[in-house]
C-alpha cells in the first residue's frame, strides 16, 4: 500500500514540476531588465548589449528558448550561469549541501529547544513558567531575523568570542561550530512556532478523556507522559517541521547573508538581482524537488506514527 501510494504521489508531482518550470521560465523573462543589462551594468553600449544577448541565445523566440531549456533539462543540463560562467549544476552542487546542513541543524536545535519547553509550559499551564516561556519565544518571533542574527553575532561572536563571526568551516565539526549561530537564529524562529502549537496540542491530550481514563486506571504519570503525550507531540512536531521546511530553506536567505554563508539562499538572491536566468531556473527546480520530497516524507512518517492517519 505504501509503495503504490508513494508512486502515486510522485506521479502527481510531475505536472506540478512542469508547471513550476513553465512559470519560472516565463516569470524571469517578464522581469524588466535583461541579463545583459544586469551583468554589463550602466556603461554598456547598445551594440555590446545586443552582442551579449546573441551570445546567450536570448535573441531567439520564447518557444525556441523554452524548447532548448527543456531539451537540456532532459539531458540533466541546467545550462551555465550567465554571470559566473560555470555550469549551474556544479554551482548548486557546491552550495546546496551548505544550506541543507544549516536547515537540518536549525531544525534539530529548534526541536531540542521547543519540545521540552512546550511540555513544561503545557504541564505548568497558566503559571508564570508558562507565561515566561511563551513570552520569550513571542519576542523572538516578533523581531526581524536580521536583527536577531546581528545581536547574536555581536554578543556571542564579537563580545564574548565564543563563536566565529561568519563563514562555515572546513569539516563536519567546523561546520557545527561555524554554523551554530545561524542555526540558532533560524532554530529560535522555528522553536517559537513549535512551542506555541505543541503546547496547545499537549494540553489537548492531557485533558483528553482517554488520558483521564488512563489515570483512573492507575497508570503512572510518567507512563502517560511517554505513551500518550510525547507520542502526540512527536506527530505534531513532524507535521510542523514538514510544513515549515520550505519556509526554513527559503528563510535561509537573510541568515546566509548576515553570517556570510555561501548557500543557495544567497545564490538565489544574487541570481534574481543579476537576472541570471539559468541559475534562477535551476534553483527553483531544486527547491521544488526538495519541498515535495519533504512533504512526502513527513506524510509517510506521520502515517507510521499516527495509526489514525490515512494515506490518501
Amino acid at each position, binding site marked *: 500500500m505504501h509503495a503504490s501510494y508513494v508512486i502515486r504521489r510522485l506521479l502527481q508531482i510531475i505536472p506540478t514540476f512542469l508547471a513550476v518550470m513553465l*512559470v519560472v521560465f516565463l516569470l524571469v523573462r517578464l522581469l524588466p531588465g535583461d541579463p545583459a543589462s544586469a551583468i554589463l551594468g550602466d556603461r554598456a553600449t547598445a551594440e555590446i548589449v545586443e552582442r551579449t544577448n546573441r551570445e546567450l541565445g536570448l535573441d531567439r523566440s520564447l518557444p525556441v528558448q523554452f524548447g532548448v531549456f527543456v531539451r537540456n533539462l532532459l539531458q540533466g543540463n541546467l545550462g551555465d550561469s550567465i554571470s559566473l560562467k560555470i555550469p549551474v549544476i556544479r554551482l548548486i552542487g557546491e552550495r546546496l549541501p551548505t544550506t541543507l546542513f544549516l536547515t537540518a541543524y536549525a531544525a534539530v536545535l529548534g526541536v531540542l529547544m521547543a519540545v521540552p519547553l512546550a511540555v513544561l509550559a503545557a504541564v505548568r*499551564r497558566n503559571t508564570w513558567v508558562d507565561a515566561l516561556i511563551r513570552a520569550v519565544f513571542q519576542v523572538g518571533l*516578533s523581531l526581524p531575523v*536580521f536583527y536577531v542574527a*546581528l545581536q547574536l553575532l555581536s554578543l556571542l561572536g564579537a563580545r564574548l568570542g565564543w563563536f566565529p563571526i561568519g563563514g562555515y568551516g572546513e569539516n563536519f565539526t567546523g561546520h557545527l561550530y561555524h554554523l551554530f549561530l545561524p542555526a540558532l537564529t533560524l532554530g529560535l524562529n522555528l522553536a517559537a512556532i513549535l512551542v506555541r502549537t505543541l503546547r496547545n496540542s499537549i*494540553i*489537548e491530550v492531557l485533558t483528553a478523556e482517554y488520558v483521564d481514563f488512563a489515570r483512573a486506571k492507575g497508570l503512572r504519570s510518567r507512563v502517560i507522559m511517554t505513551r500518550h503525550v510525547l507520542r502526540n507531540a512527536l506527530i505534531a512536531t513532524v507535521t510542523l517541521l514538514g510544513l*515549515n521546511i520550505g*519556509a526554513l*530553506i527559503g528563510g535561509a536567505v537573510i541568515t546566509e547573508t548576515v553570517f556570510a554563508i555561501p548557500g543557495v539562499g544567497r545564490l538565489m538572491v544574487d541570481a534574481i538581482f543579476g537576472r541570471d536566468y539559468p541559475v534562477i531556473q535551476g534553483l527553483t527546480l531544486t527547491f521544488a524537488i526538495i519541498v515535495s520530497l519533504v512533504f512526502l516524507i513527513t506524510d509517510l512518517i506521520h502515517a507510521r506514527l499516527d495509526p489514525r492517519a490515512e494515506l490518501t
Partner: protein
Amino acid sequence: MTTMHSPVLEVPARPRRRLPKPTLLIGLALLLLLIFAALFPRVLAPFSPTDFDYEALLKGPSAKHPFGTDNFGRDVLSRVIYGTRTDMQIAIFTTLFPFIFGTLLGALTGYLGRWSDAVVGRVADLVVVFPFLVLVIAIVAVLGPGLTNMYIAVSAVGWVSYWRLTRGEVMSQKKAEYAQAGRVLGYSPSRILLRHLLPNAVTPAIVYLMTDMSLGILLGASLGYLGLGAQPPTPEWGVMVADGKNFMATAWWISTFPGLALTLAGVTFSLIGDGLADALRPRA
C-alpha cells in the same frame, strides 16, 4: 526569517481549556492602543516623522526626543508612532485577501470535494513548492516598488494556508451530526455550507490570521533588509530597524525602539489569537 517563504502554517489545535480571560482583554486593549496610534498619530507624536533637523543628528534619548533622533535628525518616537499606521496597514493588507479568499475556497472545495478539490490542490502545490522570494521580487520588479505590490505578492501565496485549514475543518465537520441533520431536513447545500459549516470551520483560520498578521509585518521587515520594503520617507518599523543596523554600536536607539514596537505588535496579535481560540471554541 521563516517569513521569507510561504507563510508559516501552524497545525490548528482546538484548545479545550479556557485560557484566563485577561488574555483577550489585554490583547484587545493593546490593539486599541495601536489602532489609536495608527489613526491619530498627530495627537501622540511630538514632531513630524519626516522633517530633518541637521542640528540634531544622531542624538540620544532626551526630554525633547524621548527615543532620540536618527541620522537625519528625525524624531524616532514620532517615526515609531507614525510607523504604526504603516505597519497596521501591512498587517491588514497582507492577510485580508488571503483570509477571505482562502477560507471561502477552502469551505467550497472541502464541501464539494472531488475534482474542484483536486484542481485547487494542484495549484496550491505549485504555490508551495515555488520559491516565494522569486515571486516577490518578480512582482515587485514588474509592477514597481512599494507596499501595494508586496501585498499582491503575499496574497498570491498566502491564501494556501487558509485554504488548507478551512478545507480540512469543513471536511471533518461535513461528517458531523448537525450537517447530516441539515441534509436530512432538506436544507440547500449553500445554506448548510455558509450558515452551519463555515462558521464552525473558520475558527482555526481566524486564530491563524493573528499569527499571520505578525508574520506579514516581519515579511515587510525582511523585504526592507533586501531593499524591497516600504519606500522612504514612509516610516515603517522593519525598515527603521534595518536602517538603524549600521548604528547599533553608536546609536542603539534608532533600531531598538522600532524593534520594541514590532515586539509589542507581535505580542498583541498573539494574545488576541490565543484569546479568540478560546472564545470561538467550536460549539459542536
